[in-house]
């Protein structure tokens, strides 16, 4: 079935509900790859994943294999992982260090900036064959902010700066929580689920589910008290939830701001050495604010920042009903080892496939995917209204917990992107 008109997609997205086919129709998934992941700014990786010249990470953009690599001069390139000769992927490793990429098939050799350096039997390719014409193809647009590298398959469009908008402020906060103003990614935790990619970004802006889906993680935490491994979940009393704020802004982005109502790994009193290092650079007031920041930042469509456990999650859609998530716990550069160890442990408990929290979300996602096979009930609801919804001084739509305001923003952006040819 072809879907090509604005009205066709418009019929699937209401202000506060979307049609089940957004999660079940493989034709719509193919269109999402073309019109969303094939067009807008998509997160590729953080610069700290490739700290040294020659460091690379492979991945994909809208299903097309890519390499993010740091060239000898320090510049980061995002290249298509496809030999210009017959098309083989020139790099098969997930991560590593290379001084060049050599195609395994006929041994064409490319530099880490993509330039073609060597072709065996080049004299047989004719006198008009120029190496300079056959370098690895660069992804049309690449830009970064705070070390977060994004790429766009569209040669034209708004700048990354404009796309991120207010999200830059939240990236600044995440990076600024490190005493030296930098984060260092560690190896990714990887998990998958038999469900649509949009469940993950919906879930991260949803504090409605947490009490129920995570009743076991919360409940055990409450039973055991808040000492010891307190780096898992806070047990802020429910009466503090009204202090929590949601924001929706820009191109589908959103923020849950817990306003210090959950237990924090970086609580100023827990790790005095960390706080002292932060205070030295930032001053008492700002350091306290940064240390106590607890945000989920959803940067549409595929990046989520979690400032408490200090990781970022990347959504990798594989099929309409199959999604992979890569979560990168990050060290706060300049923080004591014990803080960084606690952050890694917190992510292991929270988002690992052997952890306590995300596994229950995955179970919920798989049940949603199966439930949405029911044709008699067509709509998925986002009707929950936040308290005191208003536009704040930064132009963000803001309200108090709980609400489904942020996903309504996702679907406005979804429809905008899907409606462009």
């Amino acid at each position, binding site marked *: 079935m072809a879907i090509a008109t604005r009205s066709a997609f418009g019929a699937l997205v209401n202000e506060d509900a979307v049609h089940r086919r957004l999660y079940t129709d493989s034709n719509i998934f193919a269109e999402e790859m073309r019109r969303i992941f094939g067009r807008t700014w998509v997160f590729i990786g953080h610069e700290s994943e490739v700290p040294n010249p020659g460091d690379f990470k492979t991945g994909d953009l809208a299903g097309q294999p890519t390499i993010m690599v740091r060239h000898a001069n320090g510049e980061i390139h995002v290249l298509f992982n496809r030999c210009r000769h017959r098309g083989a992927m020139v790099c098969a490793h997930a991560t590593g260090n290379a001084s060049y990429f050599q195609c395994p098939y006929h041994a064409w050799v490319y530099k880490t900036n993509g330039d073609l350096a060597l072709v065996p039997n080049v004299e047989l390719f004719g006198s008009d064959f120029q190496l300079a014409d056959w370098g690895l193809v660069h992804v049309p647009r690449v830009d970064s902010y705070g070390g977060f590298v994004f790429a766009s398959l569209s040669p034209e469009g708004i700048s990354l700066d404009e796309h991120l908008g207010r999200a830059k402020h939240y990236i600044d906060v995440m990076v600024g929580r490190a005493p030296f103003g930098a984060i260092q990614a560690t190896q990714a935790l990887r998990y998958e689920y038999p469900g649509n990619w949009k469940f993950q970004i919906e879930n991260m802006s949803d504090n409605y589910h947490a009490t129920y889906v995570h009743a076991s993680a919360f409940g055990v935490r409450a039973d055991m008290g808040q000492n010891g491994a307190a780096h898992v979940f806070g047990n802020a009393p429910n009466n503090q939830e009204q202090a929590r704020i949601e924001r929706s802004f820009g191109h589908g982005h959103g923020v849950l701001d817990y306003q210090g109502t959950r237990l924090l790994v970086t609580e100023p009193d827990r790790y005095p050495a960390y706080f002292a290092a932060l205070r030295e650079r930032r001053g008492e007031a700002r350091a306290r604010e940064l240390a106590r920041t607890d945000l989920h930042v959803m940067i549409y469509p595929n990046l989520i920042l979690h400032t408490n456990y200090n990781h970022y999650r990347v959504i990798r859609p594989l099929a309409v009903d199959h999604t992979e998530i890569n979560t990168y716990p990050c060290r706060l550069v300049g923080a004591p080892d014990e803080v960084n160890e606690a952050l*890694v442990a917190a992510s292991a408990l929270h988002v690992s496939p052997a952890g306590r929290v995300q596994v229950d979300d995955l179970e919920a996602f798989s049940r949603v995917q199966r439930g949405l096979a029911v044709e008699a009930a067509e709509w998925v609801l986002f009707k929950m209204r936040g308290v005191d919804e208003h536009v704040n001084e930064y132009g963000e739509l803001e309200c108090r917990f709980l609400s489904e305001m942020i996903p309504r923003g996702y679907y406005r952006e979804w429809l905008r992107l899907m409606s462009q040819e």
Partner: protein
Amino acid sequence: MSRESLQHDVEQFLFHEAELIDHRRLDEWADLFTDDALYSAPNAGEEGDPLHEGFIIYEDRRGITERVRRLQHPAALTQVPPPRTRHMIANVVARDGDNGDRVVTSNQVVYFARQGREVQYPGSWEHVLTRVEDQWRIKRKKIVLLTNDRAMSQVPVL
């Protein structure tokens, strides 16, 4: 204790531990660990340096207790119904550790079955066993899954 009987002894311990997990006698399983235990599984590579690598499991004795209580909690979505597991244990090699401890390496495969779905988790297990009141207890347990370079969804007790 002779070399043969020591080998037999540590093998029997691993079999016993596996039986406790597979029959969901998880409180008894948690009690096998010493108070200063570390239970870990690096999510990539084998070294398991918490400052440079991630972990799918990284917890102390308290964390192990918390894991067990959560798995037994009636609201744990992934545990109702519970997965059924079987540990297969082979290539058990024991060597001397510090202060009379034994370092035991083994190859294990955990078969996981739940709601018609089956997954295998093969890998290398390393136990550091110590004698407490004439019983073996686990001071360190580290698991390196062969599949730790790919995405997983619901890893059982390993």
